[in-house]
């Protein structure tokens, strides 16, 4: 008793405790992309240890720059591709089948409640939405994960954030998480796991939970976690129906990874969002957050809708609702990157892509590209972007560029106005 979700997951996976505060845990999945994995592969080769612990537990995608933009990014793809083939890694998503890692892997059913997951990518915390312990790591941790299937973590102290009240119309998970980060700060959860709980989270669909957990790292969190429930099981059902007789039985099994009622937390924060307005960032840190109403009229040069935070189908639907029948302002250009091929084709089927195109958006293939200023929408010096991404660091989307983070609905409204503005979906 008295355990949090992360503690229960650690208990089920611990293989060693090299000191009183360090836990070496067995990994259920190791995710890889073409930016941070090639240096690990090259290092393993140089050490004469070009092996993988279990090819079926390693999932690989090329997503950050796709298709390759130059010889260097082509080489990164090549190293990853040949390595995946050499080791018989069948879950490898190459150009055409690829999408933004933290949108693609959940969609494929690769994450389950109680799992331990690492990836050489800070937004790996997204997968905590499924009740998993999922953490971004550096290349060396990734390298050891690939080779040995283990990773070391400090004891997972947990902050519980109870989101209470009810979501006002036109206010989304993105606004909620921005308000949380604004409140606790960029290092408010450093070295800690954030458990997102309370009635608002319980009522959220999986995509909204992913948006919440995605940005746990922007408050320094090791992982964001939502307790598994019926919503989790229903999302995963197509992938787990062979393992269980019924969704009820699956839920019963997964409830093992819900926190004890008397679980001991580092802090419990009550966060009432009844009066929350749509939020936007204004500086170079994700905790520089204000209501959109206080930033109205700020001109922008580019709108970007996409990324692992807000590039899923529900995000595109919300933006399309605002855009339908409207044109983007002459003073801006706008880009939408559906996060995965299935998001893309679903959006095509629903007529959403047409709405974006009719409004004047450029539609790109699924890729991270613009989000980290590598391709498909890099900013010029002095330019400003309204983005549905997760990071507004100085130069993040291009040297000298400024990023305002917001929800897809706000971004769509901003595209039409040419300046930051609340969407008509928000009715106060």
């Amino acid at each position, binding site marked *: 008793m008295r355990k949090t979700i992360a503690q229960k997951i650690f208990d089920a996976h611990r*293989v*060693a405790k*090299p*000191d009183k*505060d*360090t836990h*070496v845990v067995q990994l259920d999945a190791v995710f890889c992309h073409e*930016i*941070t994995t*090639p*240096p690990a592969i*090259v*290092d393993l080769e140089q*050490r004469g*240890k070009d092996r993988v612990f279990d090819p079926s537990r390693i999932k690989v995608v090329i997503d*950050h*720059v796709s298709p390759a933009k*130059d010889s*260097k*990014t082509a*080489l*990164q793809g090549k*190293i990853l591709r040949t390595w995946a083939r050499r080791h018989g890694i069948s879950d490898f998503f190459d150009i055409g089948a690829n999408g933004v890692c933290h949108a693609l892997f959940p969609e494929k059913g690769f994450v389950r409640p109680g799992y331990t997951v690492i990836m*050489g*990518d*800070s937004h*790996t915390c997204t997968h905590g939405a499924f009740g998993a312990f999922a953490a*971004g*790591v*550096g*290349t*060396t*941790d990734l*390298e*050891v994960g690939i*080779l*040995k299937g*283990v990773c*070391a973590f*400090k004891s997972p102290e947990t902050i519980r954030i109870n989101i209470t009240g009810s979501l006002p119309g036109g206010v989304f998970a993105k606004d909620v998480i921005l308000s949380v980060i604004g409140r606790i700060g*960029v*290092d408010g959860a*450093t*070295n800690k796991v954030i458990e997102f709980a309370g009635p608002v989270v319980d009522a959220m669909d999986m995509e909204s939970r992913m948006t919440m957990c995605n940005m746990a790292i922007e408050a*320094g969190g*090791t992982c964001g976690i939502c307790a598994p429930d019926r919503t989790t099981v229903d999302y995963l059902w197509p992938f787990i129906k062979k393992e269980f007789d019924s969704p009820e039985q699956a839920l019963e099994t997964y409830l093992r990874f819900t926190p004890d009622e008397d679980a001991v937390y580092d802090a419990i924060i009550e966060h009432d969002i009844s009066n929350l307005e749509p939020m936007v960032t204004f500086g*170079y*840190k994700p905790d520089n957050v204000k209501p959109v109403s206080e930033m109205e009229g700020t001109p922008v040069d580019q709108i970007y809708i996409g990324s692992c935070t807000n590039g899923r189908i529900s995000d595109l639907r919300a933006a399309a609702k605002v855009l339908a029948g409207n044109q983007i302002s002459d003073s801006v250009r706008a880009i939408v990157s559906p996060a995965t091929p299935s998001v893309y084709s679903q959006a095509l089927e629903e007529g959403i892509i047409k709405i974006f195109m009719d409004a004047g958006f450029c539609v790109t293939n699924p890729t991270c590209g613009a989000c*980290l*200023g*590598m391709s498909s929408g890099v900013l010029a010096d002095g330019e400003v972007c309204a983005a549905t991404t997760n*990071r507004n*660091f*100085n*130069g*993040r989307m291009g*040297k000298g560029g400024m990023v305002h983070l917001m929800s897809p609905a706000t971004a769509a409204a901003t595209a039409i106005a040419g300046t930051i503005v609340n969407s008509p979906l928000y009715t106060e």
Partner: protein
Amino acid sequence: MKLFNGKVLFLDRSDINTDEIIPAKYLTEISRDSLTPYLLEDLNLKEFNPVSDIKGKQVIVTRSNFGCGSSREHAPWALEVNGINLVVGESFARIFRQNMFNCGMMAVELPADTIEDLFTAFAGLETTAQTNFDAGTITFTAENQTKTVSFTISGFDSDLVTAGGWVAFADTNY
């Protein structure tokens, strides 16, 4: 084991993020050495000149939450190829801190007032740091003043430094 001695670079700001330490556009480099010229290229800090200020430095002293943001190990690598194996600060982002020890380097946390004392006494002066790993002390020297501070790191972190990093340690132990 690496050495943790040398001239000190003072970075008087909190929340220095990994995009400032090494911008994303250089993540296409496969070799660590190719990162050498780009360390702290985008650092947002008054009167800081990456070209002249980094040269010859082996230790960084900074404030809180250093290395926040992306998981890129390119950040410690960019430090390492510039000969910087030790960063001293009030606190570090988790992934950055772990990456440092995983590479056999050190991210040493000291109390805020100790960091403040170091800035007051040494910032702006040509300062040298000398680390005694076994004793857990770092001695700072400039002109005619000297100050020794004690630090603690966990048993595991210390094992990683001695083993030369996590790959070597994990391969022997698991």
